């Protein structure tokens, strides 16, 4: 059962990704694209965690944690770029 | 345990780090640090040369992990020679730059030291991936050095240089990947052994890898069609840097020689890509002649002379069976040092001519141009290959050991082109003048570095016999790769 559930979850998350990419492509604005990218990053966390369960390994946990901890910095940088141009001032 | 082998890598690294730690920008201290490091390197290089001349190949297993598992440094005659050459070139180049050019931008001295670290590491390492790493060290430092100072020309040339080399680095990695994927090893000696046993698909894959390596090395060595970046980059670089860069193309050549001698001079892959290399080298030589003739600035002209030397060398290597390697190495020593000296001299001349700089057009007379013209005359004779200086010796030696009509014709034409171009350049620079110049007088240290380098040409001619013996011994050792293999891999190889 678990395996099936995991497969379903993986499929759902991957599908979510496809939708994210779709938003990233069509935009229309830069904030839309950044938002799509940000969501992709967050979905990746879910994916990695589920994958960890699937293969019964905790070795991938840090990758997920790393995204949670510093992934947002990219988003912040782009957002700051949009509003101020200068991200370090 | 003999740790000296790693000194040529560690000395400049240490000096570079000390230079970085020195945040108060005390220029005299920085110069002193850099020069002391170069002097120490020279001393160590002499010592290592002496050691290599004992005939034993010394292997230094880093981290005490034996080849092929760990990285080893290998000191044989070739690497000792190249390290020595680097040290001999570096000192005057740095001395020259220490007259003020070093202050035209940040971190010059540290970059210079790291460049030396990279070059020496590339010469000494016995591991292919480590070679890549040291290539990158020397490249990143050279990027910084090439862009040292200001000016749009430099930035443009630098950009081209950087992008091309980044593409080259990517290719290098692909080649290394294939090497590992087919032979399962990265150690040069182990690679040479394992390569011989490959068949079928793996053999073809390895061929691709090696051809790609030739491209990578050819890019560093500046061969056709990969040399286009060089003239602009070298001509626009600061003089001391350009002089040091004279060794950079030779790193590419060295890598070719090393890999070729170990794995492809003999065995099932003998002569892999050799034919293509031969023709490309000849085309390089021919195009360099054309470039020399068409140059509108002395710096560009000298840069093409560098390309010319590369064509000459690679053709001699590709001619086959390493039979011309001894003379080629003599020629390599000569051309590196003299081209280095010429870059410095070009700068002195350009300083003396003010606005016109090194453009080959009518300009103001150079203050005290007599000394410079004498130096130019000597350098031109040497680089063109006229007697009685080292260029002639090298050329005769090469002509004798590469009995191929095309090569002869091209080499002689190259000499003629150099003669025509340099006599034209010299007469324009020193004779065709309008009024007294407002340019700068060369400083004593400037002259000292130039004279120091150029004086090596007559010395190399006087001591041609011992030097030729020496390079012949280097070639002899390379012709016998088993020495290297057994030194690195132990008796089993």
């Amino acid at each position: 059962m678990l395996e099936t559930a995991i497969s379903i979850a993986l499929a759902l998350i991957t599908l979510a990704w496809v939708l994210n990419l779709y938003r990233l492509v069509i935009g229309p604005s830069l904030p839309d694209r950044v938002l799509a990218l940000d969501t992709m990053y967050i979905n990746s966390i879910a994916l990695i965690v589920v994958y960890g369960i699937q293969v019964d390994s905790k070795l991938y946990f840090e990758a997920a944690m790393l995204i949670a901890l510093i992934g947002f910095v990219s988003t912040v940088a782009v957002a700051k770029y949009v509003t101020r141009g200068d991200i370090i001032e | 345990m003999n740790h000296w082998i790693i000194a040529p890598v560690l000395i400049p690294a240490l000096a570079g780090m000390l230079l970085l730690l020195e945040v108060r920008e005390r220029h005299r201290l920085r110069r002193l640090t850099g020069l002391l490091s170069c002097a120490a390197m020279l001393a160590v290089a002499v010592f290592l040369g002496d050691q290599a001349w004992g005939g034993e190949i010394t292997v230094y297993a880093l981290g005490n992990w034996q080849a092929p598992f760990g990285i080893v440094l290998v000191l044989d005659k070739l690497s000792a020679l190249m390290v020595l050459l680097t040290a001999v070139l570096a000192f005057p180049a740095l001395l020259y730059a220490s007259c003020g050019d070093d202050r035209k931008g940040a971190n010059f001295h540290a970059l210079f030291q790291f460049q030396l670290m990279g070059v020496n590491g590339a010469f000494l390492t016995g591991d292919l991936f480590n070679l890549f790493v040291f290539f990158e060290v020397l490249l990143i430092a050279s990027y910084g050095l090439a862009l040292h100072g200001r000016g749009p020309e430099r930035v443009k040339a630098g950009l081209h240089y950087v992008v091309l080399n980044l593409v080259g680095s990517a290719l290098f990695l692909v080649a290394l990947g294939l090497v590992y994927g087919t032979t399962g090893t990265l150690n040069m000696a182990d690679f040479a052994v394992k390569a011989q046993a490959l068949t079928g698909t793996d053999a073809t894959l390895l061929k691709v890898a090696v051809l790609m390596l030739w491209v990578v090395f050819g890019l560093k060595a500046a061969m056709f069609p990969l040399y286009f970046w060089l003239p602009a980059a070298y001509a626009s670089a600061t003089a001391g840097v350009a002089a040091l860069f004279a060794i950079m193309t030779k790193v590419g050549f060295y890598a070719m020689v090393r890999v070729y001698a170990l794995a492809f001079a003999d065995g099932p892959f003998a002569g892999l890509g050799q034919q293509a290399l031969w023709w490309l080298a000849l085309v390089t030589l021919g195009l360099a002649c054309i470039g020399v003739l068409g140059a509108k600035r002395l710096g560009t002209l000298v840069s093409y002379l560098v390309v010319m030397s590369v064509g000459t060398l690679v053709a001699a290597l590709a001619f086959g069976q390493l039979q011309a390697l001894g003379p080629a190495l003599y020629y390599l020593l000569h051309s590196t040092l003299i081209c280095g000296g010429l870059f410095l001299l070009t700068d002195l001349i350009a300083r003396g001519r003010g606005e016109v700089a090194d453009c080959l057009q009518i300009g103001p007379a150079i203050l005290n141009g007599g000394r410079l013209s004498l130096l130019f005359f000597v350098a031109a004779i040497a680089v063109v290959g006229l007697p009685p200086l080292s260029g002639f010796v090298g050329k005769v030696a090469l002509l004798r050991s590469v009995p191929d009509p095309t090569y002869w014709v091209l080499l002689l034409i190259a000499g003629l082109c150099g003669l025509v171009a340099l006599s034209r350049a010299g007469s324009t620079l020193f004779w065709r003048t309008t009024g007294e110049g407002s340019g700068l007088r060369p400083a004593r240290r400037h002259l000292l570095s130039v004279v120091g380098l150029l004086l090596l040409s007559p010395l190399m001619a006087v001591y041609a016999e011992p030097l030729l013996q020496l390079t012949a011994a280097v070639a002899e050792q390379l012709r016998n790769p088993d020495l290297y293999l057994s030194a690195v891999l132990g008796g089993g190889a």
Partner: protein
Amino acid sequence: MNLAFVVMLPFLGAFLPPLVERVTGNRTLLACGAAALPALALALLFNPARQVFAGETLHSTLRWIPSLDLSLAFRLDGLALLFALLVLGIGLLVILYARYYLSAKEKAGRFYAYLLLFMGAMLGVVTSDNLLLLVVFWELTSLSSFLLIGFWGHQTGARKGARMAMTVTGMGGLALLAGVLLMGNVVGSFSLQTVLESGDVIRASSWYPVILCLVLLGVFTKSAQFPFHFWLPHAMAAPTPVSAYLHSATMVKAGVFLLARLYPALAGTDLWFMLVSLAGMMTLLWAAFVALFQHDLKGLLAYSTISHLGLITLLFGLNSEMAAVAAVFHIINHATFKASLFMAAGIIDHETGTRDMRRINGLWKYMPYTAVLAMVASAAMAGVPLLNGFLSKEMFFTETLQSEQLGALSWLLPLGATLGGVFSVAYSARFIHDVFFNGEPVNLPKYPPHEPPRYMKVPVEILVALCVAVGVFPAITVAGLLAVAAAATLGGDLPEYHLAIWHGFNLPLVMSFIALFGGIFIYSQRRRLFDLWARLPEVDAKLVFEGRIQQLGRVASAITGRLQNGSLQSYVAWAVTLVAVILLTQMWHLPALSLDVGMLPMDGVAILCTAMLVAAALLTTFLHRHRMTSIMSLSVVGLMVSLLFVRFSAPDLALTQLSVEVVTMLLLMLAMYFLPVRTQVESSSVRVLRDVLLALVVGAGVAVLAFLVMTGETTTISQFFMDNSKSGGGGTNVVNVILVDFRGFDTFGEITVLGVAAMGIYALLKDLNLASAKYDSLGRPWAADAHPLVLVTISRPLLPLALLIAVYIFLRGHNLPGGGFVAGLITSVALVLQYVASGVGWVHSRMPGDYHPVVAMGVLLAGLTGVGSWVFDYPFLTSSFTYVSLPVIGKFELATAMLFDTGVFLTVVGATLLMLANLGKLSLLDDKRENA
């Protein structure tokens, strides 16, 4: 030894005059100093000369480069002695002459230095006993003559003349080098003795024609033989002493000397005859003809020189021993009369200020003594009896009559010879009549001309006296020297000959008289001839040559410009094409791709992810003109690649890739502030097609390679790492142990690269003048809120949290995925976040802003960790580890690798902050400029 010393003497002496000049301004002293050297050399030759006259050949050899068979071998035989005497003797006279010729302003010291250099080179050529050595000196004569001809380098003529001479003779020199090398290959030695003894071998060799052509190319260029004669008249831009020296006895004679020298080795074949005598005849006639029309005094002498050299060449070409003797004899005679004529011309030039014969007239009245000297020398040149020129010319006529090499056409030779004689007389007559008589001088720059200083005439007197002495008493003056020289030339016994003024009425005498009267007749018809000449199109060889050279330069420039067009795109395209060619050519040798190999099973998620990665990569590519979008999709690629690493068991890589992604994004955003946000369409569709093709070939090729390797089987060295990681490296994370231990040296280099990149970036950014945009890409002013409250407030407590995670990642690295590099990046990102949130000023008021020392400490720490192992006499970077047990805490590991990894950590932190913080500060500079 003695002989080598004599040759080296002028070289050593060349340094003397400039030094003397610095000490004293006395020009006489200077000249004497310079003259002392040839005088000394002559004196030193006295004894050896006696031995040579006694029939000996002296040798002297010093080792130089045995492996090239190049030794400092000298020989003194008759031929060498003859030339050595000419070189030194005339050189001595020229130095004395130059003392008066050069004005006080001129740098006489340098002049003498050049002259002595040349003298030494010439002496070397004639005494070399090794062919390679001969080439060495040969080229040295070209080089030193370049300096001499270009002595007045401020004059265009001198510059161009010098370069032309150098280029032509240099080319010949290279050909000669090739010829000599080939000869050496055939004979097996460069020793002159061996070569001369191997004439038969050489002539029988299949290389003979090549060798002969190459050697003759050297000879003809040097001796200004047709069609390489054009450089010599332009070399007249040199100061006259130089002309007197180079074009009478030395430089141009080097060519004919070589003919004489190699006569036994190369002569005696039909090819030799055809090439040598034909060139000689052409030169003889053409130059003699042209000489008549020269208005420049030295121009006339120059062409006359060419003509006489043609005569000598012709003689050597006749393949007759007697002709060779005549040639040698004419070499001597020509040297004496031509040197004196040049000197006389120099006196006239010196005293009148011009060399134009149309202005110089009637000098007999003003300088009768010089006139007499010049007239005697001219007469010798014309071949008037009782002067030396007559004797050798007579022999020449005789030889042409006796040659049967042309078979039925043999009569052409004496005909040509006579014709040459006729013109020779004509231009000699012109030299006498037009200069010393022919009315009054016209508009001379110096007027009235008068006799030169006493001692300026002495060299001329000596030479003219020699002309007369030889002409009248050949047997007691020159016979001995000629005999030894000719014997040495022929390399054996001499033919029977007799030097005398009177050989009775014979055909040669008739030819002489025809020449004499014919010449005078032609000169009398000069007006008509001059008119005719004037109507011929004027060809200035200098202009033509210069034009050719410049054209060559232009063509070269154009070709270079084509290839090296300054376009990075084309450079990259060349490189990529090369790779594509490699891939395409090798693909044929690969087996047909088959999917029927052992592969890991695919699953839907993987396929979908691959599709997304591919889509994102293509988006990045095709949307590259919309830069921000391109960056976003590039980020997707990065994320997907990280996940690929997760999927295929490489968590370390995933961690690294993810954190590098973030830093890269920061970097790109910092840069985009200063860069345009869009790229306009620039590439033509052809270009795009080409690039797409290249990209496809390379991409497909690499993909195929990857597939083949992945599905193939290779035994690698990795098992060793798995086995030794824990026991030898003290860690269970093999990737990390490889990085910090097995291949720690790579990592050491890698952090160096990172550190150096940061330094380089710092240097690039220093003083960079970049205008930042005042409006956003939509033209609106930027938002007011520089430091949003939420961002500022949240990012601050995140710092210790991130540091904690960094410590965690760092510490576990040795045993589990993680390590110094990722920890360093986390730290950097957390710190940069502070910059982004709160600004440079805020951050720098809280911590030092110069990261150079951090980088240095990092690399230093890594390096010192490596050096530490020396203490225990282990190689650089040998690791060591131990397990420590503490109460409460328990057992834990201490490893030097940790120290090394700390170095990595520091370097990463220092380098990324050095890059990003300084990039961030860029806008502050711009603001400051705004405010200032």
